[in-house]
């Protein structure tokens, strides 16, 4: 290796490691993460259009309560005024108000440390009557809880409920009837009476029916709005119920993945009562979406990352970026590791693959999937395209149109997989993935040309090697520790660059050279200086 390459590489590595060591030892940024202990980062993004009239946007905001600790709340108001209102009944509402222009985007981001909540039903009585404030708020009829409707009364009679002396039995009977006898149908009705008549309804409809029946049976109950937080996926807006018994509220959900007397650790409570999660007045249109991201750090460690003691590191912390940007960066920062692997394979081992960075792009696109499934998917798409390529040979098309037709096939086969995945209730195949279709198309063409020029064996061998390289790179893109390290310590990218400079200046043999020329090593007839 030349001296300049050695020195430049060393400078890069030393710089990267130096910053890294400073952050680890001086500022106590943790090196390793524990799986599934960290808080969630959640973000609500509301888009609102108005005609410059005064209006407002309201959103339910989560509050501290058993099972959830909110911290680091961070609202942005986009030219509107923002205020938090604590309402009667415990709901917190964020209100953005002002003259609503053609487009506003307001964001409410926070961290929340979640834990499971267990509220068992009491085993024995006596069960006291609910205190007057509870009874006043949670026993009566409302427009969406038709407690006094004759159908509801009739249903209660038909169910032959246990008496008030066995309050837990009464609650269980009602819960089980709604959970088991009423089907959950997504996007169907959420009116309690219609759900009762049809024996099916949406999740919200079933919960409204349950609360209606409970109240009619003399048990205080209320609707809860929440988010089901999911790692690497958009959170789902969920509705469940709470029942008042023996001085406490007991959570329950009648949906297919429901729960009773406990709340799973990924169910975040946004608010209670019959209010929408987001609503707006005097606007033309309003839309919202939630995003969530699972942290692998403890809450105190997160706080340290958000505001390290050093002003420069604080400015440079990626943890301050909006969630979608963070999510993208977490993946992008893994690419340098993939690049180092590629360079090792090509310049130190000396294997021949199709397309220099193809294995990285394929692994990146398929990081949501397990390795065997990823390889099977890519192989299937390429196989389709190869068959078509063979058929197209008879038409003698010009190259660019021919490649474009293959690109269409690749797009169609990816679309086909999405359909198959959906109908088999499988993980959403290819969903939301910017699959490198062009790369796959060119790959197919290369395989076809190689098999025509150098034989099917040579083409299959190169394809197999490419697959093997992709297979060794794929786990990097799925590794939570690698993701954490590269995202938290982006200076490690300089180390990767230093290693690349070193390999770039490496003049020694590749493994492939050794294999190729090994016969020259022990050959007495060979020339030696």
């Amino acid at each position, binding site marked *: 290796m030349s001296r300049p390459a050695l020195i430049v590489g060393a400078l890069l590595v030393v710089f990267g490691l130096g910053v890294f060591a400073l952050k680890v030892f001086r500022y106590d940024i943790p090196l390793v993460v524990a799986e599934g202990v960290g808080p969630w980062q959640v973000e609500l993004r509301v888009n609102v259009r108005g005609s410059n009239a005064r209006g407002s946007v309201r959103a339910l905001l989560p509050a501290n309560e058993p099972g959830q600790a909110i911290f680091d709340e961070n609202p942005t108001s986009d030219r509107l005024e923002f205020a938090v209102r604590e309402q009667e009944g415990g709901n917190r509402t964020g209100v953005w108000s002002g003259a609503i222009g053609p487009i506003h985007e307001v964001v409410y981001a926070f961290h929340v440390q979640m834990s499971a909540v267990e509220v068992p039903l009491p085993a024995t009585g006596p069960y006291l009557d609910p205190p007057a404030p509870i009874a006043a708020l949670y026993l009566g009829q409302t427009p969406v809880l038709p407690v006094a409707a004759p159908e509801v009364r009739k249903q209660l009679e038909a169910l032959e409920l246990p008496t008030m002396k066995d309050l837990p039995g009464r609650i269980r009977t009602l819960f089980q009837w709604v959970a088991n006898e009423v089907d959950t149908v997504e996007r169907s009705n959420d009116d309690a009476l219609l759900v009762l008549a049809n024996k099916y309804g949406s999740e919200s409809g079933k919960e409204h029916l349950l609360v209606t029946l409970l109240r009619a049976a003399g048990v205080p109950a209320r609707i809860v709005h929440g988010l089901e937080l999911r790692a690497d996926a958009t959170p789902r807006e969920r509705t469940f119920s709470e029942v008042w018994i023996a001085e406490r509220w007991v959570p329950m959900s009648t949906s297919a993945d429901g729960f009773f007397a406990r709340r799973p650790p990924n169910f975040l409570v946004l608010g209670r009562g019959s209010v929408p999660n987001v609503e707006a007045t005097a606007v033309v249109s309003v839309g919202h979406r939630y995003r969530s991201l699972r942290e692998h750090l403890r809450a105190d460690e997160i706080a340290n990352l958000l505001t390290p003691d050093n002003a420069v590191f604080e400015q440079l912390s990626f943890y301050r970026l909006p969630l979608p940007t963070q999510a993208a960066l977490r993946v992008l920062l893994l690419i340098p590791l993939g690049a180092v692997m590629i360079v090792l394979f090509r310049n130190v081992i000396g294997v021949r693959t199709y397309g220099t960075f193809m294995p990285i792009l394929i692994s990146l696109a398929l990081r949501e999937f397990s390795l065997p499934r990823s390889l099977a998917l890519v192989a299937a798409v390429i196989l389709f395209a190869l068959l078509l390529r063979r058929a197209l040979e008879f038409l003698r098309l*010009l190259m660019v149109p021919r490649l474009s037709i293959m690109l269409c096939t690749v797009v169609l086969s990816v679309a086909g997989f999405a359909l198959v995945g959906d109908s088999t209730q499988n993980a959403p195949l290819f969903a939301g993935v910017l699959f490198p279709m062009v790369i796959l198309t060119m790959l197919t063409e290369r395989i076809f040309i190689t098999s025509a020029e150098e034989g099917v064996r040579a083409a299959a061998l190169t394809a197999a090697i490419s697959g093997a390289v992709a297979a060794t790179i794929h786990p990097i893109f799925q590794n939570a520790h690698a993701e954490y390290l590269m995202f938290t310590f982006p200076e490690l990218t300089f180390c990767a660059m230093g290693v690349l400079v070193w390999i770039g200046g490496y003049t020694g043999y590749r493994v492939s050279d*050794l294999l190729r020329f090994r016969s020259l090593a022990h050959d007495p007839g060979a020339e030696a200086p």
Partner: protein
Amino acid sequence: MLPRELETRGVLGINARNQRYTLRVNERRFYPLVDDKLASKRMCQEAGIPVPRLLAVAEVHAQAKRLLPQLSGESAFVLKPARGAMGNGILVIEMREGRMLRGSRVVSEEDFIYHAAGIISGLYSLAGHADAAMVEEKLITHPEIAPLAVDGVPDVRVIVYRGIPVMAMMRLPTAASGGRANLHQGALGVGIDLEIGVTTHAMFRGRTIAKHPDNQRALVGVAIPSFDEVLTTAVSAAGRSGLGYVGADVVIDARLGPSILELNARPGLAIQLANRAGLGPRLDAVDEALGPWERGEPNDLSTEARVALGRAVAHASRPRAA
């Protein structure tokens, strides 16, 4: 240890070739001249270096149809990409009874035009850029080595470093290589003693052999006809190219004598296997004889002196009798 053994024998690996030679002495601006066969042909013609005759060129799709009419009366020709790599995309055609044959397979006019269109689209070009399809005459193998040639035209690859020929091998097409002279496609590599122009070792798919796999003829001890001219032709062409590390492919044509088929700025390393010798000591000896390399170094040695130096270098690196 294997790496140490290879190093003692001066075997050059790909990383070392790129780092120490091609990246150092091959200036990027000279690459187009060798990567584009039309340009290198023009360059050789201007210098009076023999090259196969150019019969027709198609640079855009519309011209692909007009290639064949320009070839009437030719008995054999080669369709190739002007900027191809590793022998890909080359179609060798023999005319027999008015039909085009590739080996024993009939090639229709549509096949020919389709292949030319693929070339123009850049299917075989180095970076996938649009390319030109060129047709040149098929050279006729010199009768002395014709018996060794199966299905194609053999050539002599000469590595020329800083204007000095350092190693040579004959590349013989085989049935396996489909008439192409590229080793990775299954052609034979036959090492040549640079001093006397006689073949020394032969290699097929990385293994040493003594006889041609297709016709069992002896491959070792064959004298290369007009070998002196092979070397001077290679040295002249390499000198014109401006590149410091070149593989010159010379075909010994029955009528033209040694002619330049193409030049290569990144010549392969299998020539070391064919010669059972590493390139390292010879390249070092050239550096020692000429002093440190400088950009645009002067060309004050005559072609003959260069060939003589190359032979002296080859002689010096011969194995000593025990």
